[in-house]
């Protein structure tokens, strides 16, 4: 046997061996030794095949900027009062600026000093407003706004990761995307709606005092005294499960927020056998909670989550120690999720769902079954066509095709690529197109045979003449696949992957492997006529 042929046969055998090792975990994971499964992972299935959820959430970063301004306004108001600076009003305008209205230049200068000391990053401007007031504008610089937005998205991503970790989904993917978007993939998630609620809830927990002097009915009619706001308390009728809402007027100013929590857990109220969430404040929060409860005994404090009042208990006595409870006729699942959300922290800004693709596991199984059936039937038809048309040489092509499918699967597993439904279609398509290279070679060989060349020579020149044609022809499809990979997303990308892998595998099998088979067959034999 010539050295070259020996070498080529060894290459083919090695590829076969590697493929076998790579594919085995996909086919029979359970009956393999540990080291095998550790070194080769099974083919990863896309969400459309294994079932799961693909979510793109948009973070409303403008809200994060607004809430930063609101925080500065709160702090500034306190400082202005402490320093006895006389001002008419403090407000947020256009989302990104804070305006202080003062009566004269003297006070204005004091405001300027205060602000430039406290918030050097704010850009100041002065206008003379309507009615002779002086308007002091303080605007966040563009770079500061960018920072806040960027931080909001990062923070949201981090919080969502915490929530998902506590929810318990295996192998979740969370990624930041351009345009303040967050991509989340949850394979095999069983209750998609619960997952969305858990991920997307802003979970801004606030404690506000109830304004007992106000009449909620007046507020509903639109009459609100300044400094108060109208919120609704959520009630659940235990017998029917129906939700109702009761209006309640609370003082605008938040006395305490959920940022100061250190822990949250589900407990069961033994009197009513009803779950509630017990929360623990950190040292700062505990102290403040102590002060607030001490000075408000007998009043009601509303526990507000995302602008909905969960409960508004009367403060019976001063509460030291920093623990409180949120009850609100929860189901045990609601209570669990609320505790998770509170532990993981709130989102810095609300989010919206921009894209949601959820596939149930049963549909995924159907798709796999149908995809594999199409591969089998398609391959069988191609095999028949090749054998009928090219006889013995057709069998060589069939062997090449079989190896092709084997190599594609192996490469999917080795590269850690994800197999999707369009990806399966790509495999089917490759099967049809893979024989093309063999057809090109065989047709060339037939031409050479017709010219009266002997078997070996015909084979030789058939392969060499077809070679560049095959490369050129396949490059175009490969090019299209690469472009698709660049611009495609999700399942479609899977198509680009299998198509590219398929082309590479088919080039190898059709040009290299089939030649080795022919050469092995012709070795030491005087074959006059090829069966082609």
């Amino acid at each position, binding site marked *: 046997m010539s050295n070259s042929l020996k070498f080529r046969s060894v290459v083919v055998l090695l590829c076969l061996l590697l493929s076998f090792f790579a594919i085995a975990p996909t086919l029979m994971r359970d009956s393999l030794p540990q080291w095998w499964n550790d070194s080769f992972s099974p083919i990863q299935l896309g969400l*459309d095949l294994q079932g799961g959820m693909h979510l*793109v959430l*948009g973070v409303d970063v403008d809200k994060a900027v607004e809430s930063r301004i609101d925080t500065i306004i709160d702090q500034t108001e306190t400082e202005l009062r402490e320093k006895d600076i006389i001002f008419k009003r403090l407000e947020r305008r256009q989302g990104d600026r804070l305006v202080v209205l003062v009566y004269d230049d003297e006070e204005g200068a004091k405001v300027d000093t205060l602000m430039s000391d406290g918030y050097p990053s704010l850009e100041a401007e002065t206008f003379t407003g309507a009615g002779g007031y002086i308007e002091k504008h303080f605007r966040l610089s563009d770079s500061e706004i960018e920072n806040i937005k960027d931080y909001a998205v990062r923070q949201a991503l981090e919080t969502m990761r915490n929530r998902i970790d506590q929810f318990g989904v295996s192998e979740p993917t969370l990624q930041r995307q351009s345009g303040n978007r967050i991509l989340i993939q949850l394979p095999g998630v069983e209750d998609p*709606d619960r997952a*969305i*609620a858990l991920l997307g*809830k802003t979970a801004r927990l606030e404690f506000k005092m109830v304004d007992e002097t106000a009449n909620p009915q007046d507020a509903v009619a639109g009459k609100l005294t300044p400094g108060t706001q109208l919120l609704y308390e959520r009630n659940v009728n235990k017998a029917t499960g129906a939700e109702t809402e009761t209006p309640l007027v609370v003082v605008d100013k938040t006395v305490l927020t959920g940022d100061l929590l250190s822990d949250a857990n589900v407990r069961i109220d033994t009197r009513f056998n009803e779950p509630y969430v017990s929360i623990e404040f950190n040292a700062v929060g505990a102290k403040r909670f102590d002060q607030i409860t001490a000075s408000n005994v007998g009043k009601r404090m509303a526990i507000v989550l995302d602008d909905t009042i969960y409960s508004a208990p009367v403060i019976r006595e001063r509460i030291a120690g920093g623990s409180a409870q949120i009850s609100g006729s929860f189901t045990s699942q609601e209570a669990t999720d609320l505790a998770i959300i509170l532990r993981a922290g709130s989102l810095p800004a609300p989010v*919206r*769902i*921009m*894209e*949601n*693709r*959820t*596939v*149930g596991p*049963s*549909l995924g199984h159907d*798709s796999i079954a*149908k*995809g594999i*059936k*199409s591969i089998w039937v*398609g*391959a069988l*038809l191609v095999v028949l*066509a090749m054998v009928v048309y*090219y*006889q013995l040489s057709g069998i060589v092509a069939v062997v090449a095709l079989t190896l092709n499918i084997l190599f594609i699967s192996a490469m999917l597993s080795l590269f850690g690529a994800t197999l999707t439904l369009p990806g399966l*279609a790509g495999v*089917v*398509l490759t099967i*049809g*197109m893979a*024989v*093309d290279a063999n*057809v*090109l070679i065989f*047709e060339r060989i*037939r031409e050479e045979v*017709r010219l009266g060349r002997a078997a070996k020579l015909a084979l030789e020149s058939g392969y060499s003449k077809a070679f560049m*044609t095959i490369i*050129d*022809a*396949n*490059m*175009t*499809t490969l*090019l*299209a*696949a690469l*472009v*698709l990979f*660049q*611009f*495609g997303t*999700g*399942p479609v990308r899977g198509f*680009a992957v299998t*198509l590219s892998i398929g082309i590479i595998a088919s080039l190898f099998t059709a040009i290299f492997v089939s030649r080795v088979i022919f050469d092995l067959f012709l070795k030491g034999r005087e074959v006059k006529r090829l069966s082609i």
Partner: protein
Amino acid sequence: MQLIKPDINIDFVGKRQIALIVSLALILVGFASLLLNGGPNYGIDFAGGTLVQVKFEKTTDAATIKESLAGLELGSPVVQSFGDNQNEFLIRVEQASGELKGLSVQIQNALEQTYEKGHVEIRRVEMVGPQVGKDLRNKGLKALFYAMLGLLVYISWRFEFRFAIGAIVALFHDVMITLGAFSLFGKEIDLPIIAAFLAIIGYSLNDTIIVYDRIRENSGKHNKESFPFVVNRSINETLSRTLLTSGTTLLVVLALFVLGGGVIHNFAFAMLVGVLVGTYSSIFVASPVLIFWQQKLDKKSA
């Protein structure tokens, strides 16, 4: 076995006027359909909206489903049966709600009122917001554009520019006819269809290149013959391969079309049309354009 005799000599080039009429007719029919329908029929990937696939315990019909959804303000939902069974349906709504409590929950609740709890299985939900839809549409168009550009460059490099022109004309031809067929058969254009278009482009070009390669080879061999003769001869010489490869590809695409299931159905349909048209175009479009271009060049230099 041989389907095509080695000495076959069909006058393909001579029939290029007829081919031109056929191609134009196909494109025009597609165009007319597109015009009548007010542009391509975009699926939710590109138009935005919500799609819910529901499987029922018992068979039912679209009218009953629509009735049970009447209470929700969904605009005019489109309800289609999915697959062969009358117990699986697709409900498509134009709205895409960004709210956390999505439309699918509302739809499920409404259906459970009519069909009892536990008898309704939501198998798939796809919600694409308008912004994402726009992004995906841009990305899809960009993909098609860059693929064409890349191929133009590749063929110009490997062959000559005139070959590239012929190939690109053939590609436009294929994509337009497939697009027309989609409109004519009322099928929706979704993300996987863009993938199919790119695969068609790759496939059709594959075919075209085989013929071109032969033309290039034969141009050297038969330099006394006229260019149209060389082209026609090259088409004939590669005919056997063209038919066999198209045949095997059609077989697998057909398998996918019949057996692949509803989710992949439109994709397979696009491929089916694309492979047929792509094979036709590499013989009847790409090569005649090449001849046309050559004749123009000859006239200029004369």
